[in-house]
Structures are given as structure tokens and as C-alpha cells.
């Protein structure tokens, strides 16, 4: 503990001098790759091969049951020129990402902040808030969601008490996508836990000092909580965005695999799945997958570019 105590003094601890820089750099390189080794092995032995195969298949006509046939860029061309369903899937997915990610994260952060304080029965609340996420992708979700959002479901019986007659949310093409957004927000447990863990890392004495200085709670939130939590917020934004782009199971189980009614819940990966396994076009599905990778990569790269403006690392 003595080393820690010495450091607690503050940021004035001396930086190491730069003599023997080259030797140290080599030393550091070796250590880095040693720690990286598990991932490198996994990447080259398990991940890379199948990914390259799928990239190759995206340039073929592959019906799963007979050998793939090389067709050049035909799949990609078709996607952008002659596929109305592709456009529908893109639209649905973008709406889903744009709504579910901010809502889910805002909700998760708000609840995490409420839970991060001295209250009785906190573990119980935390556990209950995490319960929906435990249900995960269970087939039971499809039934539960119908119980909530069908014409005579729970939501409408609540609305009826204030005299509103609601539609069948889950099966009306105008609203069905939003019930999936609600499902995503309802399962806000994972980002909430990550936020909680992040809040735990913020030293309590910083708030104390700020309080003594008379800073308002809003100011404390903006000046302490947000900056110190920003790496975690950034993580959640990136991950939730990727996950939302790739969302499959909710639409699959709730629409019975159809993406209906009228393609209103045709998530991109659901469309991809249909192409691959219902219509025997794995080649086309692979092309769809790689286009999705490009779309997600652009979003992710963009998020990383913004980090220097709002994400504060200690290093």
C-alpha cells in the first residue's frame, strides 16, 4: 500500500525521464504483443478465416446447398439499384438506431444516477431494474410483448382508464417499430450497470469539494459527472449503436421472422437472415453483411473522431 500512499499526494509525481528511450520502446513493444497474444491467436485462428470466407461469398451466388458461383460485384450492384426491400430495411434500421440508442442510454444513465446514492434497499432496486435484461431474447418475450401492446393488451387497458382507445400498437405498421424501441429501452440493464460501474470510479470527495464551493447540482453534473464519466458514455454510445444496427432477435421473435406487418420491423439483419436461410441466397446475404459493416464502421469512426471534443481520459 505504500506505493499507493506515495502517489495519493497528487499529480506532481515526477514523470520518468527519457533516457534509454529506444530500449524502452522495444521493451514496451514486446510486452504489448505478449498481452495482445490471446486476442491475436483468436483473431487469426477463429475470427479471420470465416470473415474472409463470407467476404468471398459476397461476390458469389451461393444457395447453401450447392457450390458457390463467382458473380463479381453483382450482389452489391443489385442492392443499390434493384432492391426495394434493402431500402426498406435501411430505413427501419436507421429509425431504430436513432430512437433506441439515445432513449436507452438516457434512461440507463438517469436510473444509474438515482441508484448510485445512499438509499436503503438499493440492491433490490438494481436487481429489479436488471430483471428485464435477464429475460434477454427468450421466446417468451414475443408473448409478453403481445400481452402489453395488442389492441386489448395491458397498455391499452391503462389508456382506457383515462378514456383513450389505443390501437393495436404491435401489429399496426405505423407503430410496430416503436414497440421494438420500447423493448430495447425496457432492457436498459446492461448500459445501466456500466454507467454504475463508471460512477463508482468517480471519487466522492470531488463532489464534497464542489459542494463546499457552493456548486449547484446541475453544475456538478456538468463539471464533474459528465467529464469523468465520458469514457464510459462513449463506450456505451459506440456499443449500443453497433448493437442496434445489428439488432436481430427482437424483430425475429416478435414479427415471427417476417419483419411485418408490411416490412415495418424489417431490421437489416432480419432481412439478411431471410435472404440467407429462407430464400437460399447466402451470397447476397453476405454482401448485405459487408455493406452493414461499412455503414457501422463509418458511424464508429465518426464517433471516434468526436472524442477529442468531449471524452476526457486521465492519460
Amino acid at each position: 500500500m505504500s506505493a499507493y500512499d506515495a502517489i495519493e499526494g497528487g499529480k506532481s509525481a515526477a514523470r520518468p525521464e527519457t533516457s534509454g528511450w529506444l530500449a524502452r520502446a522495444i521493451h514496451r513493444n514486446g510486452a504489448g504483443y505478449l498481452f495482445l497474444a490471446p486476442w491475436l491467436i483468436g483473431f487469426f485462428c477463429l475470427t479471420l478465416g470465416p470473415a474472409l470466407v463470407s467476404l468471398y461469398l459476397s461476390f458469389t451466388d451461393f444457395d447453401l446447398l450447392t457450390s458457390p458461383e463467382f458473380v463479381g460485384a453483382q450482389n452489391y450492384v443489385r442492392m443499390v439499384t434493384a432492391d426495394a426491400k434493402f431500402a426498406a430495411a435501411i430505413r427501419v434500421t436507421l429509425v431504430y438506431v436513432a430512437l433506441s440508442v439515445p432513449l436507452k442510454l438516457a434512461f440507463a444513465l438517469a436510473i444509474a444516477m438515482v441508484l448510485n446514492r445512499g438509499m436503503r434497499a438499493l440492491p433490490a432496486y438494481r436487481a429489479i431494474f436488471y430483471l428485464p435484461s435477464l429475460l434477454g431474447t427468450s421466446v417468451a418475450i414475443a408473448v409478453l410483448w403481445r400481452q402489453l401492446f395488442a389492441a386489448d393488451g395491458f397498455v391499452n387497458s391503462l389508456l382506457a382508464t383515462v378514456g383513450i382507445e389505443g390501437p393495436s400498437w404491435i401489429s399496426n405498421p405505423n407503430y410496430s417499430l416503436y414497440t421494438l424501441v420500447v423493448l430495447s429501452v425496457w432492457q436498459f440493464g446492461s448500459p445501466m450497470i456500466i454507467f454504475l460501474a463508471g460512477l463508482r470510479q468517480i471519487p466522492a470527495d470531488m463532489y464534497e469539494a464542489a459542494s463546499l464551493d457552493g456548486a449547484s447540482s446541475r453544475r456538478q453534473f456538468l463539471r464533474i459527472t459528465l467529464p469523468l464519466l465520458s469514457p464510459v458514455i462513449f463506450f456505451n454510445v459506440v456499443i449500443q449503436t453497433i448493437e442496434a444496427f445489428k439488432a436481430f432477435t427482437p424483430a425475429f421473435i416478435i414479427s415471427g421472422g417476417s419483419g411485418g406487418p408490411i416490412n415495418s420491423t424489417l431490421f437489416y439483419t432480419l432481412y439478411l437472415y431471410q435472404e440467407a436461410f429462407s430464400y437460399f441466397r447466402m451470397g447476397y446475404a453476405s454482401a448485405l453483411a459487408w455493406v452493414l459493416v461499412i455503414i457501422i464502421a463509418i458511424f464508429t469512426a465518426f464517433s471516434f473522431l468526436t472524442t477529442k471534443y468531449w471524452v476526457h481520459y486521465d492519460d
Partner: protein
Amino acid sequence: MTSTRIDRRRLLGTGLAVAGLPLLGARRALAQEGGNIRMMWWGGDERARRTNSAIDRFTAAHPEVSVEAESMGWDDYWARLATQVAGGNAPDFIQMDYRYMFEYARRGAIRPLDEFLGEELKISDFGDVNLDSCSVDGKLYGGNVGVNSFSVIFDSAAWQEAGVEAPSFGTTWDGFAEKCAAFTEGNVSSRVHATADGSVQEGLFEVWLRTRGKALYAPDGTLGYDAEDAGAWFAYWAEMRKAGSCVPADVQALYKNSPETAPLVSGRSVTDFAYSNQFASYQLLVPKELSVVGAPVLDGGEPGQYLKPSQMFSISSTSDEPEIAARMINFLIREPEGAKLLGLDRGVPASPEIREAIIPDLDETGRKVVELISNLSPQIGALPPAPPQGAGEINAVQIRIAQEVAFEAVSPEDGGARLVDEAAAILERA
């Protein structure tokens, strides 16, 4: 005769492209030789219990044979089967669906069974119809596990309460609409409608087309109907919707091709449409007693229905033990010992002898289904032409367009034109 066995290990070395193997010509000399086969089917736990006990009976009688059984729900089945076939690890014994059979057979993933006929497979008493319905391009690709037909299911007490005679065999399309309108008149609850919206049901659309002398597909694999037919179909149901006879669009849109999502089960209609082997599943989920009859007919029209295999047992083209698999198919569908254990769960047995043998054990629900199949005879027509590749996708398009019409995004007429256009594009691509 030497046995030609596929070296699976070596095949795997070729990676992905193992699927389109040449079929193996040579047959094993000793049909009674033992071996191990893998069997895969879709279904719930009830079907698994029945099938497993039949497998146990089979392996008890043939101790030289061992069977590994795998089962899962329909939704997961096809992705898993395709992965295994493409991954060079196809199960020997595969439960097939009518439409998927064409996809798998035409691509050489399942093998023709003609060579086993009269030997391992003693199913000649199934009759030509039940053999033809399991054939692709003149070759038999599956043993018919159960005869099936499209049907109308209803709660007869509810019809009685409304003071209307329930639909019966021989009710015409117009008569059906009139009955539903009369039901609506005598009905007090705005929640309950006379019938589900049948416009999304491909099986019902097919019957309707056939009564008009058309079909889903022509023998040359093109579409068997035109925009006018499809438009008239959507218009029939648009009228029903307007009259309040069938459930509104958003209630029907809850239906996901599974019994628990059907309007009849959710208590929103007293009549619904399903294949006859699903009748028991519906009855389980509904507290009232259900009846089942054939689909409506057309005055002076053609017979609309046909007997279709609810599912069939097929053999992988890469199976090392096709004879054993064939013997097991025979045991399950043609020998009373095995067939009795399967019961009616997969449809009514095609063999008259087996049908007779299982009737005494049937419950009330089962008896109704067997009766339906016998009473249907006047409405049974010839087998329709085989569905072309892309038929599954066209089915999905029909559902989508029927919903667009129901939600009034397009008129019935335009919907018909759209269906025909999109279907033609799919057929051209396939």
C-alpha cells in the same frame, strides 16, 4: 457389390462446397447390416416424446441400429439444417416440408427414394396421389408422414348463439360471406368477429384460385393466376372487412403463422383457417369445443382442395446409411407399431391400413380430423403443379400485400397487380 462410403473427413477438407455431391449409386449388399443414423425433425415436446418412443421401439427391434435424434422448433430448424448440410454434416434422416422439399431435392441435398420402393419402403398402398405429392420431377423424395388439407376451424356454439348456421362442407364463398354478415347482425360483442381475415392465408387463396379453375403456379413454373384474380381475392376480403365480418387489419396482423397468434385463439373471431394437422394445437389453446370443415366452394366451380403431405421423411444425399434410414421411415409411417406411436401429430396417415389401426386410439379431436379428411373427398382435386423456386418468397409477398390492402395503403385492385408484378420478378430471378 462393394459399398461406396463417403469419407466424411476428406470431404470436409474441401470446405464449404461439399454440398453438391454426386449421388451415390452403389447400394449396400446387406440391408440388415447395422449402423448409426442421425435424425432431425421440427416440433414441440409432445412430438419429441412420440417420436422418441417410436425410435426406441425401432432400435429395440433392430439392436444393430442406433439412432441419434435431434429436434427443435420450426423457426430454428431451417437455419440449423442448412448450416449442417452446407457444413458437410447433414443428418441422415431429415423431416421435410412440402415447399422446402423442392428446394432441397432440386439442389441434390436429399436423395431419391425410388430404389427403396417395394424393398425397405413398402408404401405402395399410399396411392398415387400420396406418392406424387412427395415427388419432384418424377422421383420420390420423401415418405408421406401425414395427409393434410386446408380447413376451416370454428367454434360451433358461438355460431349457434348468434342464430346462424355454421359453415359446413359445401358452403360457397358467397354463402360464407352471407353467413358471416348474418353472424355480425346477431352478434353483440364488438370484440368478436365472425371470421379471421383469410386474405393472408396462401392455402386459402390457393383453394379459391382452384375453385375458379386457376392455380398458384402453372406447370411451367410461372404464375397460375393474373392480376384480376388476385385483385378479386383482395376485394372479397375488403368487403368482409367493411361489413365487420372479419377481424380488422391490426388484429389479423398479430397472426404470425402460429396457432397462439391466431384470431380464433385470441378470442377475436369464432372462425379461422389452418391446415388440418394443426387442429389439435388450436383446440388445446381454446376453452370451447372446435369443429373443422373444408374450405368454401364455388357453385359450378372446380374442386379446390387437395391432399398434401403435412411433412415427409427424407434421406440426405450424403447419408452413409440410406437403407437403415429407409427402413426406419417405413417403420414410422407404414408399420402399425411405429405409426401408432406417432399418432395423428403429423397428419392423418396415408396408408388406409394404418389409418384403420390408429382410429381406435384417437381422442375426440383426432377423430374430427380423420373425419374431415374422409368427408373432403368431393372437394379434392388433382395435385397442383410443383411450386417453383422462389415460391416461399412469393408467399411472403402475398402476406405483405394483403396487409397493405387491409390497412388501406393500396386498393384491392392495385394490390392484385402489385402481387402479380412482384411475383413475376421473383420467379425471373430464381
